[in-house]
């Protein structure tokens, strides 16, 4: 069953919820819609890392964030399809965007021996019109509120990135961070995903 209103509970990991709540409190004034003296529109992003860079997706496009469940590999599908996973009875495809865009994975952080580090990753469940798809990210995704004006719609250096500019909504600059804002719907509707090799 679809849970449309399931944006900020359910599968979201505890940390994420706390972070998001903290964020919302911090930005309390901003997130209140329709303040007459502050007409500037806000954008709520879920921010995560691919390779060495930060990427963001508008929260409206994210149904939930969850610890990646066990993914069943599907032989003879493209490499960027990690497989299928059971998320509360919905069986969805799980995609690896690093593979998909040919982004070099970040160098592994070497952990001192004896440290308890589980190989945990997170899955953003993206809800498209009539289906959902999972996107795996390695670190805990963060929630971020910023004003629309912080997103530069037409950055000139896009040709250098590995991701086709069609999928990029813009580049956000927050403090010293640079966040590439992706339009997931465009990625999902891209022909190459729709027409997987048979």
């Amino acid at each position, binding site marked *: 069953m679809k849970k449309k209103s399931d944006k900020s509970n359910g599968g979201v990991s505890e940390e994420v919820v706390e972070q998001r709540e903290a964020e919302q409190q911090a930005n309390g004034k901003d997130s209140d819609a329709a303040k007459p003296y502050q007409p500037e529109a806000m954008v709520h992003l879920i921010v995560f890392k691919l390779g060495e860079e930060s990427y963001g997706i508008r929260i409206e496009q994210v149904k939930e964030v969850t610890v990646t469940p066990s993914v069943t590999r*599907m032989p*003879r599908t493209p490499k960027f399809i990690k497989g299928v996973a059971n998320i509360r009875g919905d069986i969805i495809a799980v995609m690896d965007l690093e593979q998909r865009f040919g982004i070099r994975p970040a160098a592994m952080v070497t952990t001192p021996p004896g440290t308890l580090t589980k190989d945990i990753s997170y899955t953003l469940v993206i809800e498209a019109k009539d289906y959902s*798809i999972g996107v795996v990210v390695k670190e805990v995704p963060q929630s971020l509120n910023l004003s629309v004006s912080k997103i530069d719609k037409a950055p000139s250096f896009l040709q250098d990135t590995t991701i086709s500019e069609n999928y990029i909504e813009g580049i956000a600059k927050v403090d010293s961070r640079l966040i590439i804002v992706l339009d997931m719907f465009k990625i999902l509707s891209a022909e190459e995903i*729709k027409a997987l090799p048979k």
Partner: protein
Amino acid sequence: MKSREQEYKEIFIAEALEYFDALNRHISALEKQPQNDQPLAEIFRLLHNLKANAKAIGYLQISDVSHKLETAFSLIRSKELSFSEEVVTVLFDGIDLLGELIRNIDNPEYGEPDPVLLRNLDIIVDNLSDSAIELTKVQKYNTSKNLTLSDLIYIQIKKLDHMLNLVGELIIDRDRINSISRELNHDELKSVSSHLYRITEDLQYSVMDARLVSVGTLFNKFPRIARDVASAEKKEINLELVGQDIQIDRNILQIITDSLVHLVRNSVSHGIEKPDEREKKGKSRIGSIVLAARSDRDNVIITLSDDGKGIDMKQVKRAAVSRQLITEDAAKTLQDSDVLSFLFEPGFSLAKEVTEYSGRGVGLDVVKNAIDSIGGRISIDSAKNKGTVFTLQLPTSIAVKGALLFEVDEIFYAIPLMHTDQVVAMDKDELHEVGDILVTDIKGETITVVYLHELLNADEAEMRLGDKTKLKGQVQNIIVVTYNNRKLGLIVDKLYRQQDIVVKPLSKPLDNLDLYGGVTLLGTGKVCLVLDVSAITRYFINNRR
């Protein structure tokens, strides 16, 4: 909430389509036995209802045409109008027009009915002295009849689809609770869980049962279709329907509708010979076609048999050789069943001439795909001058299938039992490397086998399907599957039990992957991939070299 108008309209259309089918059935019967009052009374009643209902809802064209037909039939009943050939043609056309009007109720593009046809109807209704009737031949505008089954069984089918999906979810949870209760070994939980098991099983069967319709709802459309093809091709046929009461899932029936129409048309068009030709062969002038349904455990078997000229094996072989599906030498030694399976190859058609009713480039491959998509099987049997039999083995219900569970490279897979032939355990030494493939002898039959791990997971460029060293362990578990009369042994890593599974379709963007028929959730919550046997077979054939 639906508006009452909308509800009325849906009911009207559903009922009107039922009436349309029944009218066709009865008029075909009446044509054979004009003296029989029974079909005439029924036709009368149906037209009468159609007229009244259409008038009430405001579809005046339908009520007008129904009224004219009703008048014509009342004249026939009172013997004021003879049931002559010209009259019959006009009446058939009139009933077709009704069907067309009903189907186009929601179509704003639909213009006006053919005026020639309306005029013909007026002529037979008004001109009682039929000496001077001048009926204009109506151009057949509606040769490919779009058959649709009613969407209403007093409840919308999508509601039943939804219920069935929910039952599927429930069964998965039930199995999960069952396995947890066994793990915990808690007596009360075990007893509750076994009760839950029985109830969900009952519920599942009730929902499946609610979706069943009799195959007659589809079969009854065929007397008219067969009659039209036969009359266009100047053939005489008798179509016998058997087992109309056999029950099957409504969606399965909808999916095979076009296929069955295709097969019936083919039978009349290509199977049955012209009357003179039949006489020369010492057969009755009237060709016989039997469309029969019967139940066989969880399946419904539909057979379509004709006593026509049969399929010419030599011609099929020649066509297969010329299309390079097989070498000329190999064709010589081929068994009939293998020859016939070529007919299911994409685009393979023997029709020399394109007639109005068949041979329009739609091959049997399309039929086969439709039947494959619901996990059914189709086979042909044919003997020269004796006739041809098509056998369709269809599941009674869509969702729950018996399947064989197994593991390859730590991934769970299932294959529907419908496609499994047998399961054998065999020593590695009994497998032989022959050329680029592995073969073995199973009960006297030489069967090609393939290691699924290699087929599914090896790099395509380095795939070595004929290499025994790839196998793990000494004893190999082999599942023999059949597809299109070909057998293939699949070597799996671990073989599990047989189980009823609820196949969920894959959602986008994975929904058009051939290799997988869907997925299912195991009691443990693990995802299990359901392999499509036809795709696996094709994939194997394409990768052997």
